[in-house]
């Protein structure tokens, strides 16, 4: 579990996130959602230590990350895997070399054992024929899957995904979401995902933290979000008429009144 307490960060005296507290549970997909500029990425970068927060504490399973020195942070980071928005693959290395890199750097395994591990994670993300390809030769969805494979190759305890669905078509987005969900439960990882993809919110949102102008505005799960009366959240999540209708249908479905509505519609339409 990751706990954060009163995290604050500003740039040039302009506050970007203010007093955010939350808990990210193990074995669950914890989502941070919010409009662009709401502070999601800054919060995630604070969580992994790429940005030092101005105030607040970050605790990884009882270990206070905020009070660690650089060496301790480096050791802690080996327990962290991260999928970046643009995948951040090393473009001069092949897919296989990208995934092998963390193993080469930190593992004392033999070449054969490392190769076995690479094959295993590539198989896990359904990429069995991309070993020798360079990042420039594969699609966006494949890049994300390679990014996931690289981030889990060292068996991390914590997985951070920064907008894993950005730039992907809806079908590929679902594949990536499903993969993240499966990996989270299979390896019992604490997964934190930054997203504004509504499919992800509804499909894999075990815990959802909604950020609005740098502050925590709402917290709950994908079921609670349907019934939420929070206006800011509703106008963000269900922004279009289509999504508003989908929300109404989902509410009826969840409350068991969907058949009643269908009968009524049939009556009205003759």
């Amino acid at each position, binding site marked *: 579990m990751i706990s954060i307490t009163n995290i604050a960060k500003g740039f040039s005296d302009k506050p970007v996130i203010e007093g955010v507290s939350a808990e990210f549970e193990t074995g669950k997909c914890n989502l941070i959602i919010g409009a662009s500029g709401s502070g999601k990425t800054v919060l995630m970068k604070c969580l*992994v*230590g790429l940005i030092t927060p101005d105030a607040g504490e970050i605790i990884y399973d009882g270990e206070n990350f905020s009070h660690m020195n650089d060496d301790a942070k*480096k050791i*802690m980071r080996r327990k962290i895997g*991260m999928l*970046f928005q*643009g995948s951040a*693959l*090393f473009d001069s290395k092949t897919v296989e070399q990208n995934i092998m890199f963390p193993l080469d750097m930190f593992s004392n395994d033999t070449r054969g054992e490392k190769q076995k591990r690479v094959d295993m994670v590539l198989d896990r993300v359904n990429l069995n024929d991309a070993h020798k390809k360079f990042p420039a030769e594969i699609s966006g969805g494949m890049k994300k899957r390679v990014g996931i494979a690289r981030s889990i190759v*060292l068996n991390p305890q914590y997985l951070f995904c920064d907008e894993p669905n950005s730039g992907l078509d809806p079908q590929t987005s679902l594949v990536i979401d499903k993969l993240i969900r499966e990996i989270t439960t299979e390896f019992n990882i604490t997964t934190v995902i930054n997203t504004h993809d509504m499919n992800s919110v509804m499909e894999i949102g075990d815990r959802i933290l909604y950020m609005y102008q740098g502050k925590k505005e709402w917290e709950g799960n994908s079921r609670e979000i349907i019934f939420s009366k929070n206006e800011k959240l509703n106008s963000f999540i269900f922004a279009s008429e289509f999504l508003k209708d989908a929300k109404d249908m989902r509410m009826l479905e969840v409350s068991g009144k969907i058949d009643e509505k269908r009968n009524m519609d049939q009556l009205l339409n003759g």
Partner: protein
Amino acid sequence: MKIFTRFGEFILMIKGMFTKPENWRMYWKELMHQCVELGIGSLGIVCIVSVFIGAVSTLQTAYQFVSPIIPRSVIAQIVRDTVILEFAPTITCVVLAGVVGSKISSELGNMRVSEQIDALEIMGINTKAYLILPKITAALITIPMLVVLAMTLGIWGGRFVGEVTGILPHEIFDRGLVEAFVPYNVKFALTKAYTFAFIITAIPAYFGYNVKGGALEIGRASTTAVVTSCIIILLADYVLAAVLL
């Protein structure tokens, strides 16, 4: 004030490079890779530049020597000393500042913008040590070698042109080469080579590593890195000459 901030950041970057490597074998592999990239990759341009510099030195020195009292072998002495003292270390390194400097700056800038540096940080790797230190070390190994090569080829270029044009037969050129030779000059040239090697890698690395923004900023950082490196090379050239000669 900005210059002091940048200088402070530069010093912190250099300080940050010196930590225990996460894996010696991987750092060694990276160092060898950089030696090939910087050393072998610059070989062609260094050869071309140095041969022509030597050739032009011979022609222009001979052109200015109109007095029959001065022996022709003095031309070789002048070519030798100017090539060793100035042309081989300084001109070669100014050229390399463009070739190597822009490469380092744009490579690191691209890695920063595409979050590859962040990805390495997340893995628990000291990116300053892994990405910058091997480049500087590789330059400190290969650039003095390139400068020695430039000295040799520069003098050979001068000798070749003297012979071909009939200005200076090679027997006289060879005699002039060994006359009044000061071995300290080579030591001085190598001191310059080590200093410039550090400048043409550390400064572009600083600008590339600290890029913020996108493709436009990578280009800007690359230009700033090359211009700054060239100015500091010329400044260091003057300081070293004033102090050591």
